[in-house]
């Protein structure tokens, strides 16, 4: 255990850094950039001891901090991490550094505001993963929207205003119903501590209503079919950094919400409605995979591929209930939930990397259309190598992190129902189809036009970003054990908890 409040530091250091950058302003730009980078790197470095000191043997919350916040209502500033949230915190601090580095070349106007928005966003996202008080969680969850709204709206593409308002209203609409559900739970449990809410007995009807409220919030966030339509718009219009954060971390908050709220608070409703969730997940995997195939815009393609991959996350989480219904054991179910968590981490790296790749090309040619490219390998060999690697990871090639999660989820699906697994397995074909076809059209072949002929290969900064992500993708692909160890105790605890009825 630490003798200093590490989680608070991880939340507030980037926020304070962001405010400092904002104060420095556009006039002292270089200083502002370095301050921003220093804040992001410091946050990442400080998050590493968390990984070191984390006790992998216990599912309990660790590094807890508790300060009374609103005493009249017994709300607390209560932080803590377990095996489910810790990996996501590390993902957040890691990706944020890359985004700040990535801003160096890509953003030329209102740079200080851009950096500040990302740093504040980072702090808020870490806060979401750490919060153990339901209302504190909600505050972080909602507060994230404002910086993201500005990021897409100010630095985005031509249709940015439509995309950002759609993004905002969709997520806001989902989350307000969650707020009502949280208030209801709070009034019944007489406590806002998330762990107390886990223990609260609830009737089935109540559970179903609460489950639906949570579903609206998290299904929009993750996003699930059919409330996914904001994501392609937001991704296409967002600047590179915005797309990266959105895909790598914000979508994970939806998945995290399911494991932290929906499953443990409403297990019986989850069991009753698992067919709905499994069905929607399979639609996402198959149908949205097909949609990805026909995209002409690279960012849109990756966005649809993200939805398809996140379908695996929800499938892995809810397949557990289908397994409970057939067998007594929790081992297969554990495979599903762990697979979902690994898939979230892996998708965090892979989608971030692919959006960075698109960003690299966009910075040079200012087009995201697949048709404007072709034969990039001839002029940008280093870049092509990275892009091919990440495309392979995206289609789940063994040896990359993309394989591990998908494989675990498919294995778990087999224990529930052969046809679930068969449909989920289709993704290996579809994913390969759209990823490889993308690579074929963009990277390989003859040089398509003069612009491609004049391309310069990636510079040191871009190489560093892509290289770091490549190491992560390969590392977790070859040796996922540290990651699985981290979450094992918490997943087991979660499954034991949700296997018992709360009625």
């Amino acid at each position, binding site marked *: 255990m630490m003798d200093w409040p590490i989680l608070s530091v991880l939340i507030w250091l980037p926020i304070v850094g962001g405010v400092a950058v904002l104060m420095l302003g556009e006039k002292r730009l270089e200083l502002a950039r370095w301050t921003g980078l220093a804040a992001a790197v410091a946050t990442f470095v400080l998050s590493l001891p968390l990984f070191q000191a984390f006790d992998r043997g216990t599912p309990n919350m660790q590094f807890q901090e508790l300060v009374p916040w*609103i*005493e*009249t209502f017994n709300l607390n500033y209560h932080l803590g991490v377990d095996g489910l949230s810790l990996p996501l915190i590390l993902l957040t601090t890691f990706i944020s550094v890359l985004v700040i580095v990535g801003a160096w070349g890509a953003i030329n106007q209102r740079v200080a505001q851009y950096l500040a928005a990302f740093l504040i966003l980072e702090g808020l996202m870490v806060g979401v993963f750490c919060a153990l008080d339901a209302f504190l969680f909600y505050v972080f969850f*909602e507060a994230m929207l404002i910086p993201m709204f500005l990021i897409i709206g100010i630095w985005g593409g031509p249709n940015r205003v439509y995309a950002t*308002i759609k993004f905002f209203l969709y997520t806001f609409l989902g989350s307000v119903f969650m707020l*009502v559900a949280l*208030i209801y739970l709070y*009034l019944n449990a007489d406590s806002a501590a998330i762990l107390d809410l886990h223990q609260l007995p609830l009737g089935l009807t109540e559970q179903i209503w609460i489950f639906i409220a949570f579903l609206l919030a998290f299904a929009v966030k993750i996003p699930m079919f059919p409330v996914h339509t904001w994501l392609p718009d937001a991704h296409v219009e967002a600047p590179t950094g915005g797309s990266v954060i959105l895909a790598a971390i914000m979508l994970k908050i939806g998945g995290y919400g399911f494991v932290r709220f929906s499953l443990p608070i409403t297990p019986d409703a989850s069991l009753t409605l698992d067919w709905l969730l499994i069905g929607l997940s399979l639609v996402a995997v198959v149908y949205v995979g097909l949609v990805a195939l026909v995209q002409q815009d690279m960012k849109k393609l990756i966005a649809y591929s993200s939805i398809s991959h996140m379908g695996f996350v929800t499938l892995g989480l809810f397949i557990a209930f289908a397994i409970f219904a057939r067998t007594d054991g929790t081992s297969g179910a554990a495979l599903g939930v762990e697979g979902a968590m690994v898939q979230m981490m892996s998708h965090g790296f892979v989608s971030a990397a692919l959006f960075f790749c698109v960003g690299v090309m966009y910075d040079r040619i200012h087009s995201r259309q697949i048709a404007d490219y072709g034969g990039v390998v001839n002029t940008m060999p280093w870049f092509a190598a990275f892009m091919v690697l990440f495309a392979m990871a995206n289609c789940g090639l063994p040896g990359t992190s993309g394989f591990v999660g998908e494989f675990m989820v498919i294995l778990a699906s087999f224990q529930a129902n052969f046809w679930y697994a068969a449909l989920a397995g289709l993704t290996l074909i579809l994913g390969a189809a759209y990823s490889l076809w993308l690579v074929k059209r963009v990277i390989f072949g003859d040089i398509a036009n003069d612009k491609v002929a004049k391309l310069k290969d990636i510079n040191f900064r871009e190489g560093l970003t892509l290289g770091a992500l490549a190491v992560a993708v390969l590392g977790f692909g070859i040796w996922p054990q540290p990651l699985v160890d981290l979450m094992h105790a918490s997943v087991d605890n979660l499954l034991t908890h949700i296997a018992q009825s709360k009625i």
Partner: protein
Amino acid sequence: MNTFDVLELVPLMPEIIVLTMASIVLLVDLYISPQRRGIIQILSLATLVLAALATLRLHTGETAIETQRLMNGTFVRDQMGDVLKVFVYLTVGIVFVYAKTYLRDRNLYKGEFFVLCLFGTLGMMVMISAGSLLSLYLGLELLALSTYALVALDRNNPLASESAMKYFVLGALASGMLLYGMSMIYGATGSLDLATIREQVASSADSVVLGFGLVFIVVGLAFKFGAVPFHMWVPDVYQGSPTAVTLFLGTAPKLAAFALAIRLLDNGLIGQLGNWQLMLVMLAIASLAIGNIVAIAQTNIKRMLAYSTISHVGFMFLGILAGTDEGYEAAMFYAIVYALMAAGAFGVVILMSRAGFEAEELEDYKGLSQRNPWYALMMLMLLASLAGFPPFVGFFAKLQVVKAAVGADLAWLAVVAVAFAVLGAFYYLRLIKLMYMDEPETSEPVQPAADLGAVLSLNGLAQLVLGIFPGPLIAICAAAF
């Protein structure tokens, strides 16, 4: 019983101070040369400070003061009243600071504005502390008459005269309704004293006269709040009045209206909770719906904020209609926070305007973040707070009223309310979009006067600070009931 004790006047000191000082300001204004008129503002602010000191005199620590009934029960001094009064002084003080440059630029800087505002404040104080229907009505009319005159302050402006006329006619009608309702209550209970009415209502069976009286009272209240369907005057008056007057109208009187509702519905007619709750539910839903939907269609910022006020009234009703202490606390928190948010938002409108240019159109806010990033950020915080996004204090206001509604077994109403809150987010976002995502049409920098800028910055930052540390304000409201 009817002996008069001079010591009874001591708890009335705040009212006496405001009355005396308002009269002094009126006299000073007569004899002072126009160049020295600045002193009027100083005197008015000093009045508020003195009144605040007099109000806070009895308060020590966290414990609530004991409720005192004075002047044969017509005047009540209690914790809720004192808290509301302090926030009335604060908001009126903010109004005085914001209004100064606006009025000076337009040749409207006269003693009348301050005198009328101070008399209006006195009216609000009387309303807040009213213990009988008579004093309640007296305070209400003092406030109303002051505001009618204020709206017509710029008498050369036909739009202002028109809205003053509308305001007067509709306001008088509302007062009439309220008075009619009061007369029926008097007929049913035989008393003007709210405490006696409460006992009578509790002991007697439902009578038709009482029910009728209640309907008229609620109608009158809804008029004063500006709740749908009695909201027609709000947009016209907000748009037509000089912005400084709109600023006054849109802020402190909401606190007084809240007190009016509590005094009448809770202190007097709590026995009829079952009846008035249903009426307020309907008013709340209608206000949330009309307020939020129609605001989307507005192109004039003052009109937009007027419709936003209507929707906020719907939220305040959500707290009041719960009929519990938690609900009243929530509604009081909402009213206080709303007054501060609205003051800030109109403050920005004043900041952007100058002589001959009112900055009333939404288009005028294009690219504000490039013309002046700091005040754009303040407006962003105010708008986010109005929309109810965390971590701004407006979120906790909404959280509490929604919680009160869920606690009163009206979860469906809470769901309706939050759905309309999402709808409402749109027009605040549109203004943020104009400020941050559009290019400015003029590169002219926005340079406010120092006092306006400083107070506005405090006002904006308060949204964030109160949002991160809402505990103390919540505790203050909780202690009031």
